[in-house]
């Protein structure tokens, strides 16, 4: 196990296959997210970006291979996975970021100041008592980022954080992500806007169920790679044969020849 300048690798993927009902959504992925990485996950719809992030937080089980994690991981799902009609205030939503410290019972009063600071950082001061259902899409996204700030985790996973958000909010939130990067945190984000990825994310993993390329953004987002990603079929094949590749099980590490490796070419 290698150790980067910021400590041990937070996430290692070993022969990882993730999916639903035996059909892989991520197929035989090897690689390491190094501490301090600012990594973009790019690929067409159905490429397995969300699946990979869910696998990384342990939300769905591995069909094959494994994910090695070290340390706490904060995760932000796509916005539509959260019930915004529930009568909860912005303060309470963001404050739940302190769960690891406050738990189920301890008062949040002690954390009131830090919650206020986090809300101010994302531009939501004065919104403390607003019910989350009355926020606009962009404001709600800011509230979720405040919760991420309060979680204070070394690794942060973001699933399409900028979908349906206006340019100014995106700019503010990208600045926040840059701050996290400068603080040495590891950030992995599923994104669709290639210009944005090229401008702000030094490393990229291009997925289309199979990993296409993983490395520095300039070398991954080439016309050739993008064309390959587009051509890989999105449809499930109900009659797909059982995968003939070797199994990766438990703690046994092994070399996986048939599908090729997709390690970092270098650290970003």
């Amino acid at each position, binding site marked *: 196990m290698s150790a980067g300048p910021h400590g041990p690798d937070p996430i290692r993927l070993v022969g990882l296959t993730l999916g639903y*009902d035996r059909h892989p959504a991520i197929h035989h992925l090897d690689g390491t997210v190094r501490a301090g990485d600012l990594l973009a996950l790019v690929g067409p719809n159905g490429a397995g970006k969300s699946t990979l992030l869910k696998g990384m*937080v*342990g*939300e769905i089980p591995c069909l094959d291979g494994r994910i090695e994690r070290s340390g706490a*991981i*904060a*995760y932000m*799902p796509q916005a539509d*996975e*959260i*019930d915004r*009609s*529930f*009568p*909860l*205030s912005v303060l*309470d*939503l963001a404050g*739940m970021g302190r*769960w*690891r410290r406050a*738990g*189920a*019972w301890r008062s949040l009063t002690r954390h009131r100041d830090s919650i206020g600071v986090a809300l101010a950082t994302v531009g939501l001061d004065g919104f403390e008592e607003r*019910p*989350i259902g009355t926020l606009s899409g962009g404001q709600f996204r800011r509230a979720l980022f405040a*919760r991420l700030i309060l*979680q204070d985790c070394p690794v942060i996973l973001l699933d399409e954080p900028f979908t349906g958000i206006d340019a100014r909010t995106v700019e503010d939130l990208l600045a926040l992500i840059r701050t996290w990067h400068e603080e040495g945190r590891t950030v992995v984000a599923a994104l669709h806007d290639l210009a944005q990825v090229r401008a702000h994310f030094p490393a990229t993993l291009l997925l289309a169920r199979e990993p296409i390329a993983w490395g520095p953004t300039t070398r991954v987002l080439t016309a050739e790679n993008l064309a390959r990603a587009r051509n890989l079929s999105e449809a499930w094949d109900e009659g797909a044969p059982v995968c003939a590749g070797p199994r990766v099980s438990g703690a046994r590490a092994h070399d996986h020849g048939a599908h090729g490796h997709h390690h970092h070419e270098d650290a970003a």
Partner: protein
Amino acid sequence: MIDPFGSLVAPFVEFGFMRRALAGCLALSVSAPPVGVFLTLRRMSLMSDAMSHAILPGAAVGFLVAGLSLPAMTLGGLVAGLAVALLAGAVTRATTVREDANLAAFYLISLAAGVLLVSLRGSQIDLMHFLFGSVLALDDAALWLLGGISTLTLVALAVIYRPLVMECVDPLFLRTVSRSGGPVHLAFLALVVINLVGGFQALGTLLAVGLMLLPAVAARFWARDLGRLIPVSMLIAALSSVSGLSLSYQFDLPSGPAIVLAAGALYLASMLAGPRGGLLRRLVRPRHLEA
């Protein structure tokens, strides 16, 4: 009816059985509505209806074994209700069919079995007792049970409040920070079941849902945040209990339906006059604000 206040209070002053009925209903009024508030917020209102049907066969087995015995029927109801809730939950996790569909399947099986069991031995009157309860015949044991259920519910809700709220809003987030999601969900289902079993003593299996859901839904027209929804729903349930019991005494009506109808009337009144999205409020709209 010269003195409406007197006629409201008189039956409770005069008759012990009315006081007992009131005590039982008030105990239920502080425990069932908060559970109902969470059910409505999770869009699981009809789940409680299914659960109330699921309780029937358990109570029927208790009745077959021990006659009209409170502990036997309560225990039977608890076991059947929890079994249906857990089975539906387990099948949902193991298969791709959604929880509401599984719950419907299990409660229908359970209900049919219950009706069959009751009719095997009981008379029509027994069946009516099952379905519509007997709030005017609450004995000491029943009152202790209702008080115990009420206490347990409030303590349990206080303990699981924060994870329960998170489980409703953002279950995925809860899973990433804590393992309490699963146990909290089960504990909540158990609270639904014990409150329905409690309500079944007083109001019968079918009407127990009324005191759980009607005040909770009515409260949505008065309050916006959880901190107010819960006390408002308790208040509405208590008002329904007092007025329902009193009316049932005045006009010689069956008490269970009278209480639930009182709750229904308060719901309709809230729907019309409530400040949060009530109909009247929508008809006489003040001019919009500047920002």
